[in-house]
């Protein structure tokens, strides 16, 4: 250990940046400064006594406000839960506590993960540190901002259809969507249960490897976690292997922003120079068909998950209710935002009698077609590389009136969610001064390989080291 600075100094520097910039950036809903400083003092005392500390011990991190943190307000970005204090810790939080990491606060997000810009937080929008007239992306926008602006060393976000990758791409940081079932979802407020993942937003692939090493593994509280042992991801990043990289032609359409396209293709040249083989592949169902499929299935799942918010046991209860029915209908109408209501209604529609087969069941079958398509390409290639987002950061207010335009932000991320496979976004360029993200996806439970390629790329480039002009 170099002793260049103390843990207290590190935590204090994060808190100072938050004080200075968060009124504009809107990354945090709750800052747990006092608690963080008292934990930092304990770590500094341990270091003074000459005791060994763990790799994550004393490291300040932020947490997306959909993850339950005992004793700390957890709102999901929603008025419905604006005063809700979590009664227990999510498994990921328990594991972070075991590793000694220090939580600096809860980050702003589109309510329940419903969004791609962080403008659908019921409290305030977050702003991109690279240009505060622009969105940071969503729904883990606050988390991405906190890492981009050095308010935290890493963050725990959530990715259902792109909510960890897309804001990382727009805000110039690294983020990993793990394989579904790699990390426990227990204590995460659910959006779509067959798609939701919790994962790290970090400054580098190496940091992401360190974080998931501490988070991954079976959890008895989440029966959708797989029993596979957790590799020492952080120690496997330099292993030499030559990969065949697939570039899906449908992810580079003529409608893709020309400069984003050029920059991502340039980054792929770097991967070639590292010794890997690149070949064109086709994934014909993985863009607009995937988006439509994803839309039906996630709206159906979220309409079911959000039934628990009924004004009875927790959350907002309407004062305007004389019957139980009115209690449900008014509490929900008052507590949910417009985008939440739209998604709940869409979900109810596709699950309703007369429409279930045409929409929901069909969606589940197309999901199988998409998964089979990935199985097919993974016989020829080891990883898939493509842009994370079709554009760089867009303006606040630009897409909020148009649900179709907003959904299109996720056109390159949703297919990997449908298949349940791991995918990382890494900064790969600046286009007109704004970050561009490159996505690397791998086979199910091959995050080791995805992290390794991302790490190799980051040793041959330095876009991930660039900082916003704050």
């Amino acid at each position, binding site marked *: 250990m170099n002793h260049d600075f103390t843990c207290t100094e590190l935590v204090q520097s994060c808190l100072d940046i938050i004080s200075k910039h968060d009124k504009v950036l809107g990354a945090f809903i709750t800052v747990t400064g006092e608690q963080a400083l008292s934990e930092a003092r304990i770590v500094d005392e341990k270091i003074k006594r000459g005791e060994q500390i763990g790799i994550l011990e004393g490291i300040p991190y932020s947490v997306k406000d959909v993850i339950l943190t*005992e004793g700390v307000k957890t709102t999901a970005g929603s008025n419905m839960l604006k*005063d*809700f*204090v979590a*009664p*227990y810790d999510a498994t990921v939080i328990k594991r972070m506590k075991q590793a000694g990491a220090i939580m600096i606060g809860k980050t702003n997000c589109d309510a329940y993960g419903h969004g791609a810009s962080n403008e659908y937080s019921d409290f305030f929008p977050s702003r991109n540190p690279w240009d505060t007239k622009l969105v940071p992306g969503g729904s883990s926008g606050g988390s991405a901002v906190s890492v981009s602006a050095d308010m935290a060393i890493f963050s725990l976000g959530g990715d259902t259809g792109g909510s960890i990758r897309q804001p990382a791409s727009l805000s110039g940081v690294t983020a990993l969507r793990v394989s*579904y*079932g790699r990390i426990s979802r227990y204590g995460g407020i659910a959006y779509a249960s*067959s798609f939701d993942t919790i994962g790290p937003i970090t400054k580098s692939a190496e940091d992401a490897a360190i974080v998931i090493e501490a988070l991954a593994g079976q959890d*008895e509280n989440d*029966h*959708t976690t*797989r029993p596979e042992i957790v590799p020492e991801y952080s120690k496997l990043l330099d292993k030499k292997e030559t990969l065949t990289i697939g570039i899906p032609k449908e992810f580079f359409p003529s409608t893709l922003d020309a400069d984003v396209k050029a920059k991502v293709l340039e980054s792929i040249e770097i991967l070639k120079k590292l010794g890997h083989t690149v070949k064109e592949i086709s994934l014909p*169902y993985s863009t607009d*068909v995937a988006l*439509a*499929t994803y*839309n*039906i299935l996630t709206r159906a799942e979220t309409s079911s998950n959000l*039934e628990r918010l009924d*004004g*009875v*046991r*927790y*959350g*907002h*209860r309407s004062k305007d209710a*004389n*019957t*139980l029915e*009115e*209690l*449900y*209908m*008014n509490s*929900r*109408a008052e507590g949910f935002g417009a985008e939440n209501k*739209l998604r*709940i*209604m*869409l*979900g*109810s*529609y596709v699950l*309703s009698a007369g429409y279930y087969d045409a*929409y929901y*069941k*069909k*969606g*589940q*079958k*197309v*999901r*199988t*077609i998409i*998964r089979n398509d990935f199985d097919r390409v993974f016989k020829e290639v080891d990883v898939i590389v493509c842009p994370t987002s079709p554009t760089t950061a867009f303006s606040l207010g630009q897409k909020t009136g148009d*649900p*179709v335009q907003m*959904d299109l932000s996720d056109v390159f991320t949703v297919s990997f969610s449908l298949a*349940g496979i791991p995918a990382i976004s890494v900064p790969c360029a600046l286009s007109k001064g704004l970050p561009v993200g490159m996505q690397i996806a791998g086979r199910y439970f091959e995050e080791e390989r995805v992290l390794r390629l991302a790490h190799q790329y980051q040793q041959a480039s330095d876009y991930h080291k660039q900082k916003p002009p704050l």
Partner: protein
Amino acid sequence: MALSQGEVRHVAKLAKLAITDAEVSEYGRKLEAVLGYIEVLNSIDIEGIKPTNQVTGLVNVFREDEARDSTADERARLLANAPEIIDGFIATPDSITKFKQ
């Protein structure tokens, strides 16, 4: 894919969401827009394809059915978020005598 006002109100009722007249038009418009782009699935042939429910491949993950008592502290934390408590119970409007309304 056009939605009638009646269909929008029906969906809101299924979702247990109170909705104003102005909102019926607003949500109707947005629902139609989204249902519009979902039409791309009409051309996909799903003959003989099994639906995907989940991607982990796990089946029947069981644990022992063991009950345990909650601690007073756990009870307190769980009830702390309830909107109204009477004698340690969560209170709601009377749903029995007002059932027929």
